[in-house]
């Protein structure tokens, strides 16, 4: 299917008008989260558990207990993804993903059948092979990509990890290292030492960690190389591999300036925005410090630099010719439709997972584009009501992140904003924010209900 820019625009318009179900407001569709299919999740989990148990049976006898322990940790992580309903069960989205996988399989018939790819509802821009043949493609990454070709590269990269058994090799390597004669002798010698145990252990673990991380970086390079090989004969442009990596390199950059956006959203004539709400201490101890990179940081990275990866793949694919390759093949309309939906679904997932500040941050990002969106306005109200109740019970820390040097500047500012609010300010801000939308959005029942709750809390 060829997609010209004009045709693409027409399709985008079509998507925006039809893709989100029900409830019309001024001819605009209102988002409604896809209900998660608990039965499907339980069925899949049981299936994977069976597979995990079979895998355990087949483990080698040498260091079996240690390897089994590591597999158990990996399995617990998988189980959590299902228990937390992180796996997205919507069949339309799953079918779309299956179509992309089918295209990869079509040109790579030797690929094993034992893997499946799912969308994960997290906003973290990442994709991951998590073991037992499960590849997770996070919604937070999908929404950032430019086209299907980039999605295909990332899928091929994760399939390569699966095919090359990187996760299993890592476990084996770790167990073998720990049990090796050299490591055990070194540990015995450290144990016997009276002095400088810490220094000796540090130098031992540093060596082992550097080694392990180097292997990890090698695995990434291998997966990149294999990914472009898998992609080569598909109908997608291999150049998308490089553009995807370039995008990953800058994925943490937030274009939105929260110091301007927050006052825009939460200012009201009755309750004007106060500068104090977004002020913070710029020193080391204020939560916004820029920490100095340690000298060994590069050696401890699990992934090579994106620029190095791009250079490697550019060299590798330089002579490849793909005259008929495209950026979109399966369904460009659905690609855009899913991107749009996922921006909302990640907000809903964060809210359900009780990460209210992340949910608020994502909502604010979307409110910058759709300031009167009924679902987004309601979500803001819900999050504020939730934080108010949590703070009242002295349990805000369970639903809100604290500012930290490891977060992006914009997210940190939202966190600081929440930290700077006293309880009465929190509910007043919410009340006047909701009130601004009151007559217009009253038709939308969730807004009406949420605003009623806000009013009650405000009056109390």
């Amino acid at each position, binding site marked *: 299917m060829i997609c010209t820019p004009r045709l693409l625009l027409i399709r985008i318009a079509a998507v925006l008008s039809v893709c989100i179900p029900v409830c019309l407001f001024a001819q605009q569709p209102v988002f409604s989260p896809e209900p998660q299919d608990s039965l499907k999740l339980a069925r899949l989990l049981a299936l994977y558990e069976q597979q995990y148990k079979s895998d355990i049976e087949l483990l080698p006898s040498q260091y079996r*207990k*240690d390897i089994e*322990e590591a597999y158990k940790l990996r399995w617990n992580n998988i189980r959590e993804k299902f228990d937390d309903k992180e796996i997205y069960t919507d069949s339309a989205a799953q079918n779309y993903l299956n179509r992309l996988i089918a295209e990869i399989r079509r040109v790579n018939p030797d690929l094993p059948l034992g893997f499946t790819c799912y969308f994960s509802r997290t906003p973290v821009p990442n994709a991951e092979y998590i073991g037992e043949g499960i590849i997770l493609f996070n919604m937070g990454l999908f929404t950032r990509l430019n086209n299907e070709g980039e999605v295909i590269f990332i899928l091929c990269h994760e399939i390569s990890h699966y095919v090359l058994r990187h996760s299993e090799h890592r476990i084996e390597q*770790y167990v073998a290292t*720990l*049990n090796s004669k050299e490591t*055990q002798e070194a*540990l*015995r010698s*450290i*144990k016997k030492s*009276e*002095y*400088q*145990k*810490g*220094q000796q*252990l*540090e130098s031992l*673990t540093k060596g*082992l*960690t550097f080694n*392990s991380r180097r292997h990890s970086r090698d695995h990434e390079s291998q997966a990149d190389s294999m990914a472009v090989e898998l992609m080569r004969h598909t109908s997608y442009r291999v150049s998308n591999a490089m553009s995807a990596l370039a995008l990953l390199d800058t994925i943490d950059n937030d274009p939105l300036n929260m110091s301007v956006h927050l006052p825009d959203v939460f200012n009201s004539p009755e309750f004007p925005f106060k500068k*104090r709400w977004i002020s913070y*201490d710029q*020193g*080391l*101890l*204020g*939560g916004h*410090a820029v*920490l*100095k990179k340690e000298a060994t940081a590069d050696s401890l990275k699990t992934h090579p630099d994106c620029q190095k990866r791009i250079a490697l793949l550019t060299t590798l694919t330089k002579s490849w010719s793909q005259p008929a390759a495209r950026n979109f093949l399966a369904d460009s309309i659905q690609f855009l439709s899913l991107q749009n939906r996922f921006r909302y679904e990640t907000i809903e997932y964060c809210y359900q997972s009780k990460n209210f500040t992340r949910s608020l941050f994502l909502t604010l990002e979307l409110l910058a584009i759709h300031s009167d969106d009924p679902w987004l306005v309601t979500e803001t109200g819900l999050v504020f009501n939730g934080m108010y109740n949590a*703070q*009242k019970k*002295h*349990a*805000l*820390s369970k639903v809100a992140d*604290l*500012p*930290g*040097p*490891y977060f992006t500047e914009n997210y940190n500012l939202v966190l600081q904003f929440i*930290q*700077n609010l*006293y*309880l*009465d300010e929190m509910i007043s801000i919410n009340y006047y924010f909701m009130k601004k939308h009151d007559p217009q959005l009253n038709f939308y029942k969730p807004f009406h209900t949420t605003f009623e709750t806000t009013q009650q809390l405000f009056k109390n």
Partner: protein
Amino acid sequence: MDHLPRRGQFFFSLILIFLASFFAKQATAQDKLSFDKVYTVYLRNSGTITQQGQIKGYFFLYQSDKVDKHTNEYTLQILDENLNKVSSIKFEDSKTLSLLESAYDGSSISFLFKNVESNTLDMKIYTLDGKLKFTYSRPFDKQTEDLMKQYAAMHTDQGTNKNVFDIRGSGYVSVLPLRDGSQRSYEVDFYSSQSKKQWTYTPMDEEKYALAEYLGSTDSLVIIEVMKKNRALSGQVTSHLVGLNFITRKKVFEIEEGREQYKIVPANVSSLPNGNILVMGSYYDKNESIVKDYGLGIAMYELSGSGKVINKSYNSWEGDFSRFLHTGSNGKIDDIGYLYVHRMIRTPDNNLFVVCEGYKKQASAGGIALSVLVGAPSGATKVVVTDLVIMQFDPQYKITGATIYPKTHNTAVGGAASDYNSQHALAAVIKALGGFDYEFTTGEPDNSNFTICYKNSEKTSDYKGKTFNSIRYTGTKFTTDKIELKTNASDSRVFPAKPGSVMILEFFKKEKKVDLRLEKLG
């Protein structure tokens, strides 16, 4: 210093396993070793990092290695106000090292160490990226024994530093009590954070008994209150307000209690926007004893930077306070007893709030019975701490209101100590024993919003157990909040944190887990 906490240290003293990347927690075969089986680190000290009385962060000093027979390697971990690890400093020092206090002046962090091996108190000043900037040492000897006793004592009721304070970006000051036989004195040490400069103020007083307490600082002055036993007055204790200029290194003023119409014992100072200093304290008739008598009321003095009294105001128990509280001429309030002033808070609109807690003697049934049985004085009375009282003063420092916040009247002192006659001595004993329920006050640096925190215990049909309570001033009104400390944790305690928040420490005995979290007050 508010050591995170004495009781809490027990929790932290649990062996902390050093996790080395993902290599930790493995290996179970009998003769096989894993990383956690060969090496442990121990927490030596922990506490808060303060700036101008505000909590800015936390420190944890670990013994991370033994270097040789005499030397250990230490790791000093610094957490910011949100409990993020922001710096880790490794250094080698004597194995007898302990960390006493820490303060922060915005551009550097200071740590006061006690080194038993070298008999020194070492003030180390670090840059924010963890580089040692300056070390200042002073001998640690018999003279400073009182100081060490202070550090060994359990409680600081404001959750802030005892002896080390930042002086607004210029460095740090410490007020050290000294003792030589029966003679008691003090010294004030200044440590620059800008260049390696240190100087000590040693009083040239004739008196053999002088106790000093840091009250506050301005841009150029450090203000201390000194209590002296005056020879000329047959050993009577007199109070002096001393201002030391840390730039010119000179004593600027020393105001003796009796210079004005009444004697005044300063309890608190704060700097005013016009550069003047506001001093608050109890006032006494000239013939009254500041130790034995309770005083006539509360006085406010406004001083210039040179120590000249610009303005003064007196609020008497009998006249002014009795309009708002049922006060007798001796200052005793019905059901509440006498008031101990914990904190004076001046808001940007020039109102002044004074936080007090009541205390009074009560007959002790157990004490009386014991006296009768053994025939010896064993404390027929006990002292209870009563309600919290917040008094409001207008910009002319006249009282305009007082609110009583009722709480359970808890026994603070029992036994013979409670039979003291002097109300002041009683208050001092209660404070020294950590018997008051008032904990600390947190708030915005300009006091536009502040929260007064205190502990309590409740026995109601809904809840039985310890509570942590707060009274917040919003700028226009007071609101209250309460945290019930009875949770599924084996023990929980509350510590001061950044403005508007508290740090809750929960210990889970079964899981051998300590959970630290910051919670905003309602």
